């Protein structure tokens, strides 16, 4: 009787020896190592945000602190009371460094909340559409198509023109503009998962619809949503900055980075570049870091590895 194939009993051929060519080929294929560094940077950033009020040399929104005489001082100049303005001051005499720290806070707050809420709403709608199917699915998807047919900037602009300024209103506008993307992604994924056997099994066991959707379907569909959401955080922050720059975003009492940049824009041409440049660089840094983090996350979640 022939032996059955069992590699534990059969000695197998060992792999070929390492060659420089092999090393080169492998390096081309398998790209960059994951960067835990980015995660660390982001954690540090989050920490800074948290403790900004204690950390900042000055509360930029307390008008009593401000002295117009200190206005428009270039970086590294000293104040009337002797301490140094690391990044200069704006036209009101606000310390740019403190303003930036507070600004990052607002930007992050708006970006994260908007994405979180949009994800929740969009995912729910997509899940519902995929699970229930039929007319409701068709109607919901018509709505999604409609919303997605317009450029987000336009919709947000008009919305905020209607609603007025305010952090909560900006978040609302961002959510309204974004949710449809998540709905579409979730629906696509949920439709695939819905055909799988575990869903059928759950339905046969008589579980109520909401339970099947939330407990069984949802965890399996979360992957692509998560990846998209990470990318969207940076996008939301950028969008908020743009809206604030255009004058329809956050109010002057809680300036985000966008508003700070807008404030400084008029002084750009006269050479007082720091009022815009530094908030701009901070914004840049924030967006890039989040994007890179999103990239790494996407790579590590990639099933091909």
């Amino acid at each position, binding site marked *: 009787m022939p032996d059955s194939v069992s590699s534990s009993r059969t000695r197998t051929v060992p792999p070929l020896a390492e060659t420089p060519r092999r090393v080169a080929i492998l390096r081309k294929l398998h790209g960059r190592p994951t960067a835990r560094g980015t995660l660390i940077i982001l954690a540090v950033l989050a920490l800074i945000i948290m403790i900004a009020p204690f950390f900042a040399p000055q509360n930029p929104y307390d008008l009593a602190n401000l002295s117009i005489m200190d206005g428009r001082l270039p970086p590294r100049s000293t104040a009337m009371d002797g301490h140094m303005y690391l990044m200069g001051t704006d036209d009101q005499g606000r310390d740019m460094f403190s303003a930036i720290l507070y600004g990052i806070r607002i930007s992050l707050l708006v970006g994260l909340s908007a994405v979180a809420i949009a994800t929740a709403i969009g995912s729910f709608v997509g899940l519902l559409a995929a699970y229930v199917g039929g007319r409701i699915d068709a109607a919901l998807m018509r709505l999604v198509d409609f919303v997605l*047919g317009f450029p987000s*900037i336009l919709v947000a*602009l008009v919305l905020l*023109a*209607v609603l007025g300024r305010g952090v909560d209103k900006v978040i609302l506008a961002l959510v309204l503009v974004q949710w449809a993307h998540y709905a579409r992604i979730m629906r696509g994924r949920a439709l695939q998962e819905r055909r799988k056997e575990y869903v059928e099994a759950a339905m046969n066991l008589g579980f109520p619809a909401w339970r099947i959707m939330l407990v069984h379907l949802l965890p399996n569909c979360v992957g692509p949503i998560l990846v998209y959401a990470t990318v969207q955080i940076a*996008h939301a922050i950028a969008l908020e900055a743009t809206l604030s*720059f*255009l004058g329809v975003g956050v109010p002057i009492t809680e300036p985000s980075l966008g508003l700070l940049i807008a404030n400084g824009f008029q002084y*750009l041409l006269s050479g007082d570049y720091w009022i815009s*440049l530094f908030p701009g660089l901070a914004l840049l840094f924030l967006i890039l870091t989040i994007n890179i983090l999103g990239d790494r996350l996407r790579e590590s979640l990639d099933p091909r590895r």
Partner: protein
Amino acid sequence: MALFILRRLIQSLFVLLAVSIVVFFAVYAVGDPIELLVSPEASLADRQQMIARLGLDLPVWQQYAGFMWRALHGDMGTSFVQGVPAISLILQRLPATFELVVAAMLMTCVFGIPLGLLAGLRRDTALGRGILATSVLGFSLPAFWLGMMLILMFAVWLGWLPASGRGDTVSVLGVPFSFLTRDGLAHMAMPALNLALANVALILRMTASGVAEAESQEYVKFARAKGIRPRRIVNRHILRNILIPVVTVVGLEFGQLIAYSTITETVFAWPGMGKLLIDSVYQLDRPVVVAYVMFVTFLFVVINLIVDIMYAALDPRVQLSAPAH
């Protein structure tokens, strides 16, 4: 084919209708334009007169019905602020936006596709990787910031280009355009580049990944097995296949650009439709805002239709008579 166009046209009409309702009622809820247009010292009679003139005393649905009636006759309301028909204000500003958008599209293709090809074909080199990495900046950084940086670099520090405004115009068929004058081009260079940057990045990446995907296709391997020269494989086999999605995106982006010109026009004080929108929003000039949204929606719909047709022309596999989606 004709059936397809007809179906799309009907769809578009529905979209326009829906948008008009949404926008009109949304904008209706905003502040009180009377506060803006009438001085606090004005008498009650003056205010009444103003309200009557602008039709603000009628019930909402009557205002809307009146609006739609007038719109279908080409009258989209009269600007609260300037007293002239809203649509004429928009059309007046259209050439400026149009030439900006066209310039941006040209830049997108001229920079985006070759750079994307380069990045895709030289994927393993520092150059290729560098191009791809830099392209991320193009669409993740906010456009207004990029615009400001451009101004800082070219106008303030280097002094090569003017910081804002539109240049001298020349009349073409009765419409003033600025791209025919040297001064016009100098003023247009930065705004057009700013508007184009996000798209350049997008098209670049699409082209690069299209090349990567095409290279792994069987027909490329077969072409190699036939002994076809590498140059021809890229130019004929690969390019033709990736151009299809790229053209689609370019077409779709045209509509997006018109919307995004709002930001660029604000940064560069370019007197186009976008700036008009921002100013109108500030001044609560409702008819102009509504007319703008309707007009832009209309443009979108037309552009999407054209893109669909072009797509069918490029990809022989598409059957336009088949039901869409």
